[in-house]
């Protein structure tokens, strides 16, 4: 990978990959600003790192020394002997910059700057920003942030953040890069609730050093990653981001991106029609489409898309089979699927015959299948019907719509149906909160579960982008 021109200490400065290898599987972490005082950032970082079970060495850094959270603190970074994989800066900005200068003298691979007060603070942050840039020009380490919420890696119990939104995530195929920490938190929490596993989360903040493109390249090429979810406001190296995304999507990875905000230069006067026709937003959509990036309108729609992709099942085509315990939701799902370019074809005769054992005369076995409430009488019926529809040779994607669930066996039967096929299955469960059943069997398998047809449609659209059949 090309190093920035500002790098004058090439021999000491770690590459992006070297720094991030250290960052995601660190042996030693120093927390600058570690504190006993509740409410301070450094206290929260240290507490979350410990409570999430990180097993490496943690060194609190606090000018008063002593013991913090049961760990021996040093008074300054300079007191630490030997290599430090990661330094977290969680102090007010002046102290953070002093510590960053110390890092340049020590053997540090990566720094995570949670601290704020730089370019994002406008005129007030200007002198801090200038000092930050001066330090980074020659820095023998790489920086995430500043002004970020940190880094999370469930597989190594690494929780370098002050935010509890990332607690309890399971390891899995999704990597997340977000210029907004709060949006990273929102998306992580939603994915976690659905059982979607996380490979890594980086809140990239101001991206003074490491950019979204750097992180996309590193995390996207990680063999554990199947889907990269990006929230970006301003792409500083947009061209590289696009080229990296193109290579990843050509290699079968998925990149889902939410582009927030508008380019600052967007209102510049234009001389030609081209300028007016190729406005920022249209160019973003066009370039994302060209490079295989799935553009989501906003963060929740992005989570819905990622949920479908994370299951790792590719549809062979665009034919959807829908079963529903109620007519209305089946109709709504059908409308949404069709308007997204999917077909909802009449099912195979054998499938219809199989379904007719469970469906009363006032239901429907064509497509969408209206199972009616009668199927609730036996907890395994819906699961069996889903299995039958998924096995239909004319169906590429199966969707089961359920409302309230009377017992656990009902969910187990759906999980069994999911296991019976390699085709993508989506479940719309509108009444999870009003059910006497846990969705754990579905979460364990990362079955995509949505709470409404519209949100399942976002998942469908993402699956469609994989086949290239639906725009």
């Amino acid at each position, binding site marked *: 990978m090309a190093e920035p021109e500002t790098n004058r200490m090439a021999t000491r400065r770690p590459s992006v990959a070297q720094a991030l290898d250290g960052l995601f599987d660190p042996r030693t972490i120093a927390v600058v600003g570690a504190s006993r005082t509740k409410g301070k950032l450094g206290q929260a970082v240290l507490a979350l790192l410990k409570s999430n079970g990180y097993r490496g060495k943690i060194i609190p850094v606090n000018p008063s020394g002593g013991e913090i959270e049961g760990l021996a603190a040093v008074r300054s970074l300079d007191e630490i002997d030997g290599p430090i994989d990661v330094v977290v800066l969680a102090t007010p900005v002046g102290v953070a910059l002093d510590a960053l200068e110390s890092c340049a003298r020590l053997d540090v691979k990566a720094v995570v700057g949670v601290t704020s007060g730089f370019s994002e603070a406008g005129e007030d942050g200007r002198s801090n920003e200038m000092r930050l840039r001066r330090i980074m020009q020659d820095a023998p380490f790489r920086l995430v942030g500043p002004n970020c919420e940190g880094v999370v890696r469930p597989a190594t119990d690494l929780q370098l953040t002050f935010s509890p939104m990332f607690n309890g995530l399971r390891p899995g195929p999704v990597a997340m890069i977000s210029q907004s920490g709060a949006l990273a938190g929102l998306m992580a929490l939603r994915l976690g609730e659905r059982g979607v596993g996380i490979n890594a989360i980086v809140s990239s903040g101001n991206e003074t050093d490491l950019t979204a493109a750097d992180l996309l390249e590193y995390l996207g090429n990680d063999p554990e990653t199947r889907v990269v979810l990006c929230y970006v406001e301003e792409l500083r190296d947009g061209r590289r981001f696009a080229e990296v995304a193109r290579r990843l999507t050509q290699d079968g990875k998925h990149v889902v991106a939410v582009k927030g905000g508008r380019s600052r230069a967007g209102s510049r006067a234009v001389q030609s029609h081209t300028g007016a*026709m190729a406005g*920022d937003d249209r160019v973003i959509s066009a370039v994302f489409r060209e490079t295989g990036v799935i553009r989501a309108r906003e963060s929740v729609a992005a989570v819905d898309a990622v949920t479908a992709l994370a299951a790792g099942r590719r549809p062979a085509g665009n034919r959807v089979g829908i079963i529903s315990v109620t007519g209305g939701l089946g109709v709504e799902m059908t409308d949404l699927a069709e308007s997204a370019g999917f077909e909802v074809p009449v099912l195979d005769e054998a499938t219809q015959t199989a379904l007719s054992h469970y469906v009363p005369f006032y239901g429907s076995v064509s497509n969408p299948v209206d199972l009616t409430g009668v199927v609730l009488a036996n907890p395994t019926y819906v699961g069996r019907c889903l299995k039958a529809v998924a096995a239909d040779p004319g169906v590429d994607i199966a969707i089961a719509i359920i409302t309230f669930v009377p017992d656990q066996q009902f969910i187990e039967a759906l999980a069994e149906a999911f296991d019976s096929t390699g085709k993508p299955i989506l479940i719309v469960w509108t009444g999870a909160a009003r059910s006497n059943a846990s969705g754990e069997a579905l979460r364990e398998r990362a079955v995509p579960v949505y709470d409404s047809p519209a949100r399942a449609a976002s998942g469908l659209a993402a699956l469609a982008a994989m086949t290239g059949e639906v725009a």
Partner: protein
Amino acid sequence: MTPRETLENWQRAGRKVVHEADAKDLLQRIGIPVPKRDPTEGRCVAKLCHDDYPHKSDHGLVRLGLAPEEAQQAAAEMAQRFAGGTPLIEEMEEGSVAEWIIGCKRDDTFGPIVLAGPGGILVELIDAAEIRLAPAGPQTAETMVDSGPGARLLAGLRGAEPADKGALADLISRISVFFAENADLISEIEINPVMVRADGKGLAAADALIVLSPNADEQESLT
């Protein structure tokens, strides 16, 4: 002189907008067909090209459907009204089946891009244009003429003759490569319209505009 040297000369001379006649000279040198100049027979178009007036028809600087002698006269009249203009007399493009716009610009986020879509008055249909990163290779250019609502126009709506999509794709690819190679000197380049003839019969750039980037000294004084 290479096309790039021409661009450098223009920039050095302080030009911002390069008028149609000069822009077309350059386009022709990179292999883009333009209408025949100074014809001795047939219907002609007379224009006066001037860097300060890129939107010629707003200033009455375009006259269509003239005989060669009339065109000479019209051009002379226009030249008298606008000092410093360059007269341009061309054969009128009458056999086309579609008018297209092809443009390139530097996007703030992604760098050089190329756009192609229905031109002329249909330019206002902004959702009809296809946009790609520049340079666009031949295959990408082919997908641009085969995608979106414009593809149906090119295929020939309601019995109309299909347009020469191959020639159009070639033009898109050619101009996007030229733009990407010289994006430090050019900020926008636009052909609007390209008159696309029936399949196999090629096309011609009926109007063209090049907007140069400020040179390095000017860029510095802007920041």
